[in-house]
């Protein structure tokens, strides 16, 4: 390498500079005035000057039910993975409030672009939870028609979907419709070029899109400090649109903040970045081992902020639900778990020839030829009698 000599002549002069650069700025604490909160971890209702919400007892019970059932579904999927029924599972444990709060803020005509972890949002959209399991079982790459529930397919390549959401929103605006679009992504994804480009396009074209970042503190083994030196919600400012940080374990605040951002989009005022400050309580996926990089105390501290417990405390204090409600919900949870378990076990493997289905909308002689060869080859085993 020819530049070696240059590097040798000029060693890094100041060791001070190196060590200064090594200490990343910690992102601010998960409290304080910049964090929108309407329900404290202790289950107390608090007010926020910019975001208010007034929900009926029925609506509150609905949110609670959504979170409980989503958690139950998630737990069942994790168990199914352990039993070898699923190849992989990405759990949403701890992120129920962020997903249900934002998901319940959506109108039917809004469009959702999820990552691979948005099981709670899918629930709000009416996607049958068993449909979410096909790709994790390895029988398909999607498993639902995105246009039935305005819920796009899960995207595994980090950050890609934020651009799709922006383009979709540009189309909504061109059509003169008043729908909004929401794109989900993680704190790690915020580092991807695609996400920066989505911010740029959405700002320039004033696209009606809400960027909903679930900052669950970790991108596999890397903490948020390895992605950013400023709080994520502040990123938006540099692109020319507002950013807000919401307590991601507070379903009321997530609902209020997302609703307000969606309304802004509908009014033609452009994008908003919502950073839901939350925590991934489990492993990144069932293949991950968080004990390699994460201290147990951290999880314990966040357990005290559990999104489901805090709403339950509030409901009990306010007498919004009686024992019969909770018992019935427990039964519904068990029934959901059973339904999911049975559906997964009964899920057939795809037909072998499905490899060649839908490669092209227009069809292709190349694919036809390979399909025929494949079929003949498979048939040759049957002829041999085995």
């Amino acid at each position: 390498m020819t530049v070696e000599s240059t590097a040798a002549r000029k060693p890094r002069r100041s060791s001070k500079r190196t060590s200064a650069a090594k200490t990343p700025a910690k992102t601010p604490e998960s409290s304080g005035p910049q964090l929108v909160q309407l329900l404290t971890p202790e289950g107390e209702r608090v007010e926020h000057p910019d975001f208010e919400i007034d929900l009926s007892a029925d609506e509150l019970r609905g949110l609670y039910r959504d979170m409980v059932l989503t958690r139950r579904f998630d737990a069942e999927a994790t168990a199914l993975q352990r039993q070898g029924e699923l190849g992989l599972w990405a759990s949403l444990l701890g992120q129920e409030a962020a997903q249900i709060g934002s998901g319940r803020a959506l109108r039917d005509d809004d469009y959702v672009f999820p990552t691979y972890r948005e099981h709670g949002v899918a629930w709000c959209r009416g996607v049958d939870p068993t449909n979410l399991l096909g790709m994790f079982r390895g029988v398909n790459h999607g498993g639902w028609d995105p246009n039935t529930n305005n819920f796009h397919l899960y995207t595994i390549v980090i950050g890609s979907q934020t651009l799709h959401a922006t383009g979709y929103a540009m189309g909504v605006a061109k059509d003169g419709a008043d729908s909004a679009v929401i794109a989900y992504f993680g704190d790690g994804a915020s580092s991807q070029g695609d996400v920066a480009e989505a911010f740029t396009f959405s700002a320039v074209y004033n696209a009606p899109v809400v960027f909903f970042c679930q900052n669950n503190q970790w991108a596999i083994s890397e903490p948020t400090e390895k992605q950013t030196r400023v709080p994520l919600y502040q990123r938006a400012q540099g692109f020319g649109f507002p950013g807000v940080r919401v307590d991601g374990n507070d379903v009321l605040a997530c609902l209020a903040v997302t609703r307000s951002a969606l309304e802004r989009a509908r009014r033609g005022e452009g994008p908003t970045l919502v950073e839901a400050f939350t925590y991934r309580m489990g492993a990144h996926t069932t293949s991950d081992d968080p004990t390699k990089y994460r201290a147990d105390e951290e999880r314990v501290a966040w357990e005290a902020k559990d999104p489901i417990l805090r709403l339950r405390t509030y409901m009990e204090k306010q007498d919004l639900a009686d024992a019969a409600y909770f018992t019935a919900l427990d039964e519904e949870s068990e029934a959901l778990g059973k339904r999911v378990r049975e559906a997964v076990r009964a899920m057939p493997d795809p037909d072998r020839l499905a490899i060649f289905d839908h490669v092209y909308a227009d069809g292709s002689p190349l694919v036809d030829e390979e399909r025929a060869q494949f079929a003949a080859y498979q048939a040759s085993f049957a002829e041999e009698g085995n």
Partner: protein
Amino acid sequence: MAAEKMSLAKALNESLRKALETDPKVLIMGEDVGKLGGVFRITDGLQKDFGEDRVIDTPLAESGIVGTAIGLALRGYRPIVEIQFDGFVFPAYDQIVTQLAKMHARALGKIKMPVVIRIPYGGGIGAVEHHSESPEALFAHVAGLKVVSPSNASDAYWMMQQAVQSDDPVIFFEPKRRYWDKGELDTESIPGPLHKAAVAREGSDLTLAAYGPMVKVCLEAAAAAQEEGKSIEVLDLRSMSPIDFDTVQTSVEKTGRLVVVHEAPVFYGSGAEIAARITERCFYHLEAPVLRVGGYHAPYPPARLEDEYLPGLDRVLDAVDRSLAY
């Protein structure tokens, strides 16, 4: 160190350790390569021993990883970057193809790009979408890149050493489903050059040429064919760019038959290149057309279908029979 048995993954880990020890300019960069040691643990323990300055957890941004590796190389470093999975290299593809590959030529040879890009690749581990792809042809098609893939622990160790020492960018494809396979590793034996193909098994009736994950399948096929009295030679190409056509030619001149096997789609794949060149070089020695066994012109299928998609023993033996029938 005398010969020792270890997994391909461990051999890579040892090799990276040696590279860090030998040259202070060597860096390791990538997502989760630090405390976690990478999702496949190939960099396990390296950050602990060499520090965060040498083994660098990067932001989740592949274009950023490769782009900054280019800058570090310009400054005299020798970055080894990890792309977490094959399907996630594409955000970096622009940097690799338009910048990394061409830099040396654009600078009229005045600058060098000693960057190694490690990519766990290929199927067979039951993963979800984008975790099982074989994009080697997309890189081999680009002038300025070396593209290699070891098939066993010993090659993993030595080829990584050679890749790090190379002044050219090397795309280092690691056959992820062979990570846990154990093999003999002699850290003292002196290996041949990086691009040199190896005769993995001698034979006289037909040549099977493969690389990376498919070498093992071909060796198994050759063993099975032996029972039927067929003598199959197996070549481990090791390098997809350049390709050691001389070794392939020598083998085909002996056997008269060639079947190329890879996981990547056959259409426009490395098998096509080998078939064309060997047909030119060995036209009068060939007893049969060069056949190819590989993936289909379809997206890599969901896990439950990958055994149908990936070439297995039966498909390789079927091609052997077809070739021998000419």
